[in-house]
């Protein structure tokens, strides 16, 4: 496992110029990186905390933390994994403070009308095919939201962020084997919900 993780680091040695500039305190580099990662970070946070208002708050905190900590970032490491780890740590702290049980992944929120799913559903209507696709995406988003936190995050990192298994292991600070077993369990649960139509609470 160590070798595979090391290969991920080595593969990223062509460090982004914007990251290097930001380490030197260049504000333009911060704007560049924010523009590049804004939607990915926001989506990841939204998948973790499910409430857009919380995700927005954590989004702000994440970039302020980036500005604070960028000098401690080791340029031989993977910036994506570092950034997502910062966001994840803030989200987990937030969930612990707010309601410790939410780390286990209950399906309910404080205002269910304003969740990630409702955002998908309330998007602008398009052609008929787009509506059908949106309906399917809506069902999938409902099923995804009903999964526990550990399942939601591994699925979003793999299929939405398209991270490699080794990168996910770095973000989650778990061995590669654990990531794989979690990925398998999460897919199985998601498929079961979609096939049986059971949208209720599922716990790992």
């Amino acid at each position, binding site marked *: 496992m160590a070798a595979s993780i090391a290969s991920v680091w080595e593969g990223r040695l062509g460090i982004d110029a914007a990251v290097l500039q930001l380490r030197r*305190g260049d504000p333009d580099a911060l704007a560049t990186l924010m523009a590049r990662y804004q939607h990915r970070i926001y989506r990841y946070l939204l998948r973790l905390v499910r409430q857009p208002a919380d995700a927005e708050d954590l989004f*702000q905190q994440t*970039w*302020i933390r980036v*500005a604070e900590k960028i000098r401690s970032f080791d340029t031989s490491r993977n910036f994506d994994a570092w950034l997502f780890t910062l966001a994840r740590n803030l989200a987990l702290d937030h969930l612990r403070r707010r309601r410790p049980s939410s780390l286990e992944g209950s399906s309910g929120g404080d205002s269910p009308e304003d969740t990630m799913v409702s955002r998908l559903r309330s998007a602008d209507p398009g052609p008929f095919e787009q509506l059908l696709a949106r309906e399917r995406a809506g069902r999938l988003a409902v099923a995804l939201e009903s999964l526990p936190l550990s399942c939601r995050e591994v699925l979003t990192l793999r299929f939405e962020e398209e991270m490699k298994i080794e990168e996910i292991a770095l973000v989650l600070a778990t061995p590669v084997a654990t990531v*794989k077993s979690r*990925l*398998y369990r999460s897919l199985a649960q998601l498929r079961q919900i979609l096939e049986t139509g059971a949208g209720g609470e599922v716990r790992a």
Partner: protein
Amino acid sequence: MSRLDEHAEIREQLALFVAGALEADAESRVALHLATCADCSAELEGWQLVTGGLRRLPTPQAPAALFERTRALAMAQLAEHREQRRNRIVLTLLILFSWAVTLAGWPIFRFATGGLLSLLDVNFRQTWLLFVVFSAGTWLAGGSAAVLLSLGRQHERRLV
């Protein structure tokens, strides 16, 4: 391994296969098996529907106002850190300069006032004591000023 055992084992690996989470050799075995097993191919399609759907989920967009607000806050944070770093460098240089002046001051003082001190009958031990008292007093005053400035700065931050 019997054909049935292999079939069961491959079937268990299909989810990780579509997730691209298998090692190269395991992936090859699954691909070989799929070429000859209609049952596993059908099962694979079920997994592909799930993973394909996940990949195609619409990306929620961060609101533009949030981006602008966050950028302003992060820029301010960055500017504050830059200023703090600059202040630390200036403070370090000042401390080094103060020490250099203090250490160099003693022999210069003795050289410059040697004749006068001998007239006043001030011996070496007395000049040494004077020097220590003078230096300690200077550093005490400097340290107190630094503490007071730091407290004032903290107070200002609390107000902000």
